[in-house]
């Protein structure tokens, strides 16, 4: 089943500008793990915003679970798509980890309805899986980057959406937390979720995801299983030399 469908998607912030996204067409199957890679300015973050409805795409150009992303209310959409924007919540002095996780249940509540026992047990479970019980009473600004990464995965778990779309979730993490984070995404995938992530690190994308999309100047250069990537394409798009050593990619500068 196609859970994300993109048809002839073109987008620019101002009509007079050259489009950042040019005529994209692709789809994501249920239960797959897709990494989107591409050099700076290739339109990755714009795609993230379009897929998660943060900016409005043209009518019928982005379908989530078979329905135009513009036709969902915000609450409804979030029950299908959990979005992780590139980390901006670090300086928050208002909320504790527990408050943040309670907000993850917001899409399931009506105005003034308080959280049920089930909501709380879902939150407790998310904390247990990510091993953050001891952080529950800390304010978000007190967390280290590694702790924040765990809290964000806990948020995704508590939100319990069918698709998870992320914008560079591992950008600021140390390598151990990076590996933990991507491992957590693998486990989410095996529990039946669909994972789409924008990622800077080509090696990590190559190692953890099933499918890879290479984006360049707003166009798809490649989309398919990672085994089928032509290394010469990577060399062209990223302007490097690439060698395959065992199952990893090795990059060398071209000059």
């Amino acid at each position, binding site marked *: 089943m196609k859970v994300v469908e993109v048809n002839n998607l073109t987008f620019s912030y101002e009509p007079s500008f050259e489009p950042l996204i040019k005529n994209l067409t692709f789809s994501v199957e249920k239960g797959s793990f897709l990494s989107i890679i591409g050099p700076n300015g290739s339109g990755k973050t714009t795609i993230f915003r379009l897929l998660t409805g943060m900016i409005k795409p043209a009518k019928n150009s982005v379908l989530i679970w078979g329905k135009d992303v513009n036709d969902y209310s915000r609450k409804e959409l979030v029950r299908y798509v959990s979005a992780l*924007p590139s980390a901006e*919540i670090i300086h928050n002095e208002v909320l504790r980890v527990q408050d943040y996780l309670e*907000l993850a249940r917001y899409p399931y509540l009506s105005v003034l309805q308080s959280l049920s026992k089930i909501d709380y047990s879902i939150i407790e479970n998310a904390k247990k899986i990510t091993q953050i019980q001891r952080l529950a009473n800390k304010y978000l600004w007190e967390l280290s980057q590694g702790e924040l990464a765990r809290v964000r995965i806990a948020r995704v778990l508590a939100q319990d959406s069918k698709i998870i779309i992320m914008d560079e979730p591992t950008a600021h993490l140390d390598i151990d937390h990076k590996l933990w984070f991507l491992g957590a995404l693998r486990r989410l995938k095996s529990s039946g979720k669909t994972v789409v992530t924008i990622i800077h690190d080509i090696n990590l994308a190559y190692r953890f995801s099933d499918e890879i999309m290479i984006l360049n100047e707003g166009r798809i250069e490649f989309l398919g299983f990672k085994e089928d990537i032509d290394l010469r394409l990577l060399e062209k798009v990223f302007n490097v030399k690439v060698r395959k050593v065992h199952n990893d990619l090795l990059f060398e500068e071209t000059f």
Partner: protein
Amino acid sequence: MDMRKNWYVWLILILLFLGLFSVLYLSNFTFKFPTSEILRIRLVRFLVTFVAGYTLAVAGGSLQTILQNPLADPYILGISSGALLGVALFKILNLHLYIALSVPAFLFAALTIFSIYYLARVKGTLVKELLILGGLFLNFFFNGIVFYLLVLKREVLEEILYVLWGFTGVIVTSGELPFLLISLVLAFILACLPLIRIRELDAITLGDQEALSLGVDVHGIRNFVFFTTSASTALIVSITGAVGFVGLMIPNIIKKIIGGKHAVLIPASGLGGALLLLIADSISRNISPVELPLSIILGIFAVPFFFWIIWRQRNESSRS
């Protein structure tokens, strides 16, 4: 000790102090029971001061969240002076009913906040400096026109001062009293409305994108807050003129000592705002032979507040 864990202690403290001060205010610090006629006048003034303080502080607090700017407040952003322009335009038509005056006041207030907001958005992101600058310039502009209009109408200069700087000692005839009370009740209700949106406001402190990804209709909430704050500010301004600084100072202080979660921030700001304005009005009535406009007294209070803000910012930037 984390003071924010004991928010209810603070809330009770504010309430106690507010209650005590209200009694002092009504007896005007003489500890004698006033005659019924004087009590009626004082009670009206008390209500006007209380609701004005409550409303403006709540408006400031919710605007600060929605605009993610600790300097936002109805006065700084020009909402108050926009409302004042509406009032002044209709005062030349010799219209004096508060509730009627608040309609044009609301239209101008809403126009102000929406236009400032859209002018300060550059490529989809809100530029904080533009927001405050825009408000500042509109403030000067509107105040200029208001001054001109009131001079044209040959109001005594004294009265212009009170309108531009805010004053709660309004004189009402018994015919006007019901309209005044309706205005106050409406303003108070509008100031309580953000309480049904506390979850959304909490989420917006995480930033627009994070709030959107939690399922919050950020755009809708922003319009809701713009609407309620401009309406409540307009109702207050048409009674008291433009009272400044309450909405700026109180929510920032509450955020630091009690915490920024809106279930507490909103009511605590309201009560704190009421208390501050009652104190300011007591000073206004008692320290000089002429009663002083409130923004003047509050402006003097604001000086240590600004030093405190600057001191905190310096500490913060040295921490990171």
